[in-house]
Structure formats: C-alpha cells, structure tokens
C-alpha cells in the first residue's frame, strides 16, 4: 500500500488513483487439496443445493400445505396441537411433576436448563480436546438430551388421535340456512344445534348436517333412535314436527 507523500486520488475523493488488480489468490502452496471458494467450490455447493431443491419442490407438490377451517373461538371442544418441532416441549407439560402446581418446572426450569446449557456449551466443556471420544461428558449429555427430545416427540405423536384431529379442523362447506324457517326453529328447540353447531356444519362431537344425502325418513329415524355417539330420543316433538325437521335437514345442500 502506498503511504505518505505522492498519493494520488480520484478527483477530490478519498479513492486512490492506483487501481488494485482483480486477480484470484493462488492456493497451490496451501496444505492438502485446498481449492478456491469462488468459483470452484461454490459451483459444487450449488449442485448439492440443486438436488436438495428438487426434493424440496417434490415435497411441496406432493403434500399441499394444510389449511383448517377459519378460527372459531367458540368451539371449545377443539384439541390443539403445536407444530411438530414443539411437540417435545408440549409433551413435557403433561407429566405430573412438570404441570399443575409444578408448571414452572416443565415450562421454565427444564427447557431453561437445557437451552441454557446449549447456549453456554463452550464454557461448560472447556477442555482442549475436540474429538467426541475424548469428551465423554459433553457427548453423553448431548446424546441424553437428544434421546429425551426424540422420546417426548414420539410419545406425543403416538398418543395423538390424528384421525379425530383431521376431522375437527376440516373445512366444512356451509349452506344458506333460513334461520326463520320452521325446520330450523324446531332444531333450535330440540337442542340439535348444541352439537351440530348453529350453522349445522358439525363440530368435535357431531357430524355436519349439510349434504348428508339422506332421505327424510332416514333422518326421522336417526332423530328418534340416535346413531353412533348420538343417543336415542334426542327429538321429543310430535310426528308432524319431526316430518318438518326431517324435510328441512334433508334439503340442506352446500352453497
């Protein structure tokens, strides 16, 4: 670098008038088969990236990202689940000594210790050795933590009812319901909507009543005798009222 007297600048700027050559470094004297990052290695790295990108796009096309029905804060029967990478923390809160009065242990102390130890790993494992075989404690604790995370995630996923979970969040086609009609009023009076919902689109405990494809007679039968989780004798009105209601439900079709 030129210093002192005789320096020349571009105009009145601080840019030196002496141009520096744009030549790559020479790595031939470096140890082993060292190579240049640009462009040699970056091209190879990009090949790995391209293969990865193809797999990534295949995944995207094969599995469209999920979207459940619009958030309904009144549906208290919904059983929530976080994204898969939070399942281990979620599962931890289900154990006796990590929940209820001990909530702080499950929500703060254990995750705090684990992530705190991860953050401060260089100061906890201060020996000069780098090889895993010569760091039994660091490696042991990490393997233990990994086993814990995998076990908790598995435990959470294995005991979750994925079918019910899919059903409770599914987007249900709504129908134009005439809430002043005789049929709807009868349903309201009989308490049908407490399980099937005010829009009759069903809920966690009962199916949707829209697009059932059932004949009025079949609906009358279910209303009287029940079906599946629905007990018998839910409808207590007269036979005439039952016919009106059955006709109404049978005629519910999606928009």
């Amino acid at each position, binding site marked *: 670098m030129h210093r002192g007297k005789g320096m020349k600048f571009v105009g009145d700027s601080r840019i030196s008038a002496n141009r520096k050559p*744009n030549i790559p470094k020479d790595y031939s004297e470096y140890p082993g*088969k060292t*190579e240049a990052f640009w462009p040699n290695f970056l091209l190879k790295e990009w090949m790995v990236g391209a293969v990865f990108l193809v797999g990534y796009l295949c995944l995207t096309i094969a599995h469209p990202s999920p979207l459940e029905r619009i958030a309904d804060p009144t549906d208290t029967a919904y059983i929530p689940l976080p994204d*898969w990478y939070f399942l281990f923390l979620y599962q931890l809160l289900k154990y006796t000594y990590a929940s209820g009065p001990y909530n702080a242990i499950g929500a703060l102390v254990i995750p705090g210790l684990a992530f705190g130890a991860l953050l401060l790993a260089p100061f906890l494992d201060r020996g000069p050795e780098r090889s895993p075989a010569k760091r039994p404690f660091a490696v042991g604790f990490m393997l233990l933590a990994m086993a814990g995370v995998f076990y908790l995630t598995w435990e959470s996923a294995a005991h979750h009812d994925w079918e019910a979970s899919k059903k409770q*969040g599914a987007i249900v086609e709504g129908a134009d319901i005439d809430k002043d009609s005789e049929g709807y009023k009868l349903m309201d009076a009989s308490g049908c909507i407490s399980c099937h919902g005010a829009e009759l689109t069903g809920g966690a405990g009962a199916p949707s009543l829209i697009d059932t494809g059932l004949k009025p007679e079949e609906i009358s039968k279910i209303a009287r005798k029940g079906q599946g989780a629905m007990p018998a004798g839910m409808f207590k009105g007269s036979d005439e009222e039952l016919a009106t209601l059955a006709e109404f439900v049978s005629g519910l079709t999606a928009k």
Partner: protein
Amino acid sequence: MLTKLYDWVDERLDITPLWRDIADHEVPEHVNPAHHFSAFVYCFGGLTFFITVIQILSGMFLTMYYVPDIKNAWESVYYLQNEVAFGQIVRGMHHWGASLVIVMMFLHTLRVFFQGAYKKPRELNWMVGVLIFFIMLALGLTGYLLPWDMKALFATKVTLTIVDSVPLMGPALKTLIAGDPTIVGAQTLTRFFAIHVFFLPAALFALLAAHFLMIRKQGISGPL
C-alpha cells in the same frame, strides 16, 4: 462492456478489494465432499442458509396476498391456496421450508457440537448460532398463527397460557405479545404478523451477518 462498466464503478468506488474479500477464501480439503464423502456433513449450514433465503423470498410473495386481520386473514390464505396461480407452491415452500430449516439447523448444530468446533476461539460464533436457533423457533411459533385457522388459534392460546404462567413477568409478557391480557384476537394477529415479518427477520439478519463475519475472520475449524 461488462468489464468497462465494472472498471467505471471501480475507478470511482474502489470495489475490487471488497469483491476479492468475498471471493477469495480457501476451502480446505477436509470440508470438501469432492475429496471426502463424509464431508457432506459440512453442507448442513449452507443448506440452512439456502432455505432461509427461500423463506425470505417466498414470504415476500406471500405478503402480496396476505391480509393480517381476523376477518380476511383466513380468506386471503384460502384464496392464495386455491385461486392464485402457483399460490399453492409458494405457500407450500414457505410451509415446508419452516420445517426443513429446523431439521437442517438441528443437523448443523449436531455437526458443530460433536466435532467440538465451538471451542476456543469460536465460543462467540457458537452462541450467535444458538441465538439464531431461538429466532428460527420464534419465527415458526409466530408464523403458525398467521393463517388464522383452528389449529393456529388454539395452538397460540396454549402458547400464551404457557407465557402467562411464567413467574412475576408472565402476565406483562403475555400482554406484550398478545396485545391484551385476556383476548386472543385482532390485536394478537397484527402483533404476531409484525413480529414475524419485521422484528424477528431484522434480528435474524443481524445475527446471520455476525455469524458469517466471524466464520470468515476465523476460518472453518480444522480436521479432527
């Protein structure tokens, strides 16, 4: 033509040293998969960055359609998913990318940990890396609410209950991120949106810059 343009800019701004600094650094043999197959474990960090770039780009396109309010958030996502050309692909990449980035970051962390690469003089870079991990988890958590569907709302309610249960500052912390001591609603959605697209990415960029500057300054750790 391009050379002339480069020279014109270089004469005025002296960009050559800057460019040589980015381009010139050696890749040692032990990290090069072309020479040692096992060196593929060194790809995880780069792939994490690659997905992060995809997340930023796909996220930018998502905000062209997404509306962060409780009436239109779900509708806009539904529209994007079902009506917009390639909307399903863009949202799909953002959705799956969020999972993949966690997987790749986990593998990258394990590689660095088991090789003991966080030891002196690389303690600071390890800590910055762990902070990046936390930021990514927070991005996943806040992004989960944005489609405003059933799982989004109720999972966020669980999260906020956990935040609320933190001793002493729990309720204040909950109010800060949810916008209200009790309601999870319009305010929560806008706050999570702001945190997801402005606050956390800003922190992420700063930490990534520090992460990369440090590795450039120190070079990659040597073979075991």
